[in-house]
C-alpha cells in the first residue's frame, strides 16, 4: 500500500511539472496577459514595451519558466491581475479554498444522503415505478446544465424560501479562525454566523449536488443490484440471518465499494461544477476565482488554481483508493 501511495505521489509530481510547463508556456505565447491586464485601454505602445521588459516577459520561455519554478518554490506563484488584482495567487487560493471545500462537502453530503438510500430502494424495487422515475430523474439531473439549474434555483428557491442567493455570508462581524465559516462560528460560539453561513450554503450546495447525486444514485443502484445477485447474499439468506443484518453487513458493505470510488471521482465533477455554481452564486471560492480568471484572463491565478485543482483531484482520488483498500480486504492484503 505504501509503495502504491509513493508511486502515485511521484506520478503526481511528474504530472504537476508537465502540466505547469505546458500551461506556463502556452499562457506566455498568448496575446494579452499581464501587460494588457495591468494597463487596460489606457495603454500606449511604449508603456506596453516598458512593462513587458520590466516584468521580464521578453525573456525566453524556459528562462521564465525556471524563474517561475524558483519563485514557486518560495511560495510565490505570481500576483493576480484580474480576480483580486494585486493579491498573490497563493493567497487567493488559500483564502478561497476553504469556501470551496465547505461547499463541496455539503454538496457531496447531500448527494450521499439522498443518493445512497434512494439507490438502495430503487434497486430493491427494480422495475417498479419508483425505480423508473428515479432512474429517469437521475438522467435528467445529468442532462441539465449546472449553471442553468443554479439560476433556476436562485430565481425560484431564493424568492420562494427567502434563502440568500449570493456570497458566503452576510456582512456580519464574524471572527475568522479557520476560513470555514460554518466551523468558525461553532468555534467562537457565534452561532448566528454559522447559521448565516449555512443559509448561504444551501442553494449552491443543492445545485452542485445534482450531478454527484445522479451518479451516486445510479452507482448505488447498480451495485446493490449486482450484490443482490451474488451468491454470498443467498448464502446469508440460507443462514436465516435477519433482513437488517443482511442489508447492512452483506449487501451495503459490498455495494459501498464502487460507491466510495465514485465519490472520489466526483471531486472532479465537483471542482468543475464549482466553477459554474460559485460564479452564479457569487460564492467566493476557488471555482469563482477560476470563472473570473477565465473571464479576465488572469493567468497567474489560473495557473496556480488549475495546478491546485489537479493536485486536489489526484490526492482525493488517492485517498479514496486508499480508503477503498481499507474497506476492501482483497486489496488491503496485497
Amino acid at each position: 500500500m505504501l509503495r502504491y501511495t509513493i508511486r502515485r505521489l511521484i506520478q503526481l509530481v511528474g504530472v504537476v511539472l508537465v502540466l505547469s510547463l505546458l500551461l506556463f508556456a502556452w499562457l506566455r505565447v498568448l496575446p494579452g496577459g499581464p501587460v494588457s491586464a495591468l494597463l487596460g485601454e489606457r495603454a500606449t505602445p511604449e508603456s506596453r514595451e516598458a512593462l513587458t521588459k520590466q516584468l521580464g516577459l521578453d525573456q525566453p520561455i524556459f528562462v521564465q519558466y525556471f524563474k517561475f519554478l524558483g519563485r514557486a518554490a518560495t511560495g510565490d506563484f505570481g500576483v493576480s491581475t484580474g480576480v483580486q488584482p494585486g493579491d498573490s495567487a497563493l493567497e487567493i487560493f488559500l483564502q478561497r479554498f476553504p469556501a470551496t471545500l465547505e461547499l463541496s462537502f455539503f454538496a457531496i453530503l447531500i448527494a450521499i444522503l439522498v443518493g445512497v438510500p434512494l439507490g438502495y430502494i430503487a434497486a430493491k424495487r427494480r422495475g417498479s415505478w419508483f425505480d423508473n422515475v428515479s432512474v429517469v430523474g437521475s438522467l435528467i439531473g445529468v442532462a441539465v446544465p449546472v449553471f442553468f439549474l443554479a439560476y433556476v434555483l436562485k430565481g425560484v428557491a431564493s424568492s420562494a424560501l427567502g434563502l440568500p442567493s449570493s456570497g458566503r455570508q452576510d456582512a456580519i462581524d464574524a471572527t475568522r479562525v479557520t476560513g470555514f465559516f460554518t466551523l468558525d462560528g461553532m468555534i467562537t460560539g457565534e452561532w448566528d454566523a454559522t447559521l448565516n453561513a449555512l443559509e448561504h450554503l444551501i442553494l449552491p450546495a443543492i445545485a452542485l449536488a445534482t450531478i454527484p447525486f445522479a451518479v451516486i444514485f445510479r452507482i448505488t443502484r447498480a451495485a446493490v443490484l449486482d450484490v443482490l445477485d451474488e451468491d454470498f447474499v443467498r448464502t446469508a439468506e440460507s443462514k436465516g440471518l435477519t433482513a437488517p443484518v443482511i442489508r447492512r453487513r452483506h449487501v451495503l458493505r459490498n455495494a459501498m465499494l464502487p460507491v466510495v470510488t465514485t465519490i472520489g471521482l466526483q471531486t472532479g465533477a465537483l471542482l468543475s461544477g464549482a466553477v459554474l455554481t460559485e460564479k452564479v452564486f457569487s460564492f467566493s471560492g476557488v471555482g469563482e476565482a477560476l470563472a473570473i480568471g477565465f473571464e479576465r484572463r488572469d493567468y497567474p491565478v489560473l495557473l496556480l488554481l488549475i495546478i491546485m485543482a489537479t493536485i486536489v483531484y489526484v490526492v482525493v482520488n488517492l485517498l479514496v483508493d486508499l480508503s477503498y483498500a481499507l474497506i476492501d480486504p482483497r486489496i488491503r492484503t496485497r
Partner: protein
Amino acid sequence: MVLGLSAKKEKIDATAGVSLAASAWKRLRRSPVFLTGAVIIGLFILVSLLAPWLAPHNPADPMLIDQVVKARNEIPPSQPGHPLGGDLQGRDFLSRVLVGSQQTLIVGVVATLFGLTGGLILGTLAGALGGWVDSLVMRVVDVMLSLPSLLLAFSIAAMFSRPSQFTVILAVSIVQIPVFARLLRGSMLAQRHSDHVLAATALGVKKGAIVFRHMLPNSLGPVIVQSTLVLATAIIEAAALSFLGLGNPDDRTPEWGQMLGDVQKVFDTHPHLAAWPAICIIIVALGFTLMGETLREALDPKNRR
C-alpha cells in the same frame, strides 16, 4: 460415424444468422426507454437538417431591432410571424432556436468524432502494441485525466486567443480523448488474451488483420455506447464554456449552448430567452443519455440470456 446422423436432425433453422448487434437491436426495439431516446434524437436530427427551411426568418437578421429598447428592457414580444418574439438584438427567436439545433448537432457530433478519433488512435496503439507504446500512451492519458474534465475543457478553451466554434469543439473533444483511449485500451487488452484472438493467432492470421478484424470490432461496443453519452456531455459542456465566456463569441449562426450562455444577464427578466435553449439542450442530452444507457444495457453480456 455416430454423430453424423444425429447432427443432421438438430434443429438449426435455415434463416440467415443474427449477429450480436442485431439481437441487441431486437431487444432495444421493444424498450420504451430506448425508443423515447431514439425518437428525441431522430426529431432533433430531422429538425437540424431541415432547420433552414423550417425557420421562418434569417436567424442573423436584426429585423425587429426597432422593437428592442434596452433602456426599458424591452425586447420584441410574441407577434404574428414571430411566435416567440425576438431576442436582444431583435432577431427572430423561433428561427434562432430552430437553426440553433444545427450548430448544436455539429458541436456534439464533431466534438465526439474528434474525441473518438483521437481516442481510437491512442487506444488502438496502446492496446494493440502494448509494451512501451502502451506505457507512453497511458502516461499521456494519465496526465490528461489528472485534471477534472470540465476544468480541462475550460483551460483548453481559455488558451485560444481567438475563441470560436472550432475552439469550443476542440476543447470539448480533447477532454474526451483519454476517456475513449482508456476505454478502448482496456477492452483491447482484454481481447489480446481472449481465446478467439489466440485462435486467430494460431491460425496464422496476420497481426494487422487480428487487430482490425477481431480486437477492434469487439472492443468498439463500449466505445460506441460512450460516444452516445459523450454527445450529450459535449453539448452540455459547450454550453458551460459559453456561460464562462469561453464559447464562440460570434453569434450570427446560433447555437443553443451559446444562446443560453449569452442571456445570463437577463435570465430573471426574460427567462424565456434562456428557457427555450435550455429545455432543448436538456431534452436532447436526455435523449442521447437514454439511448446510450439502454444501448449499454443491451450490449452488456450480463443482460444477455
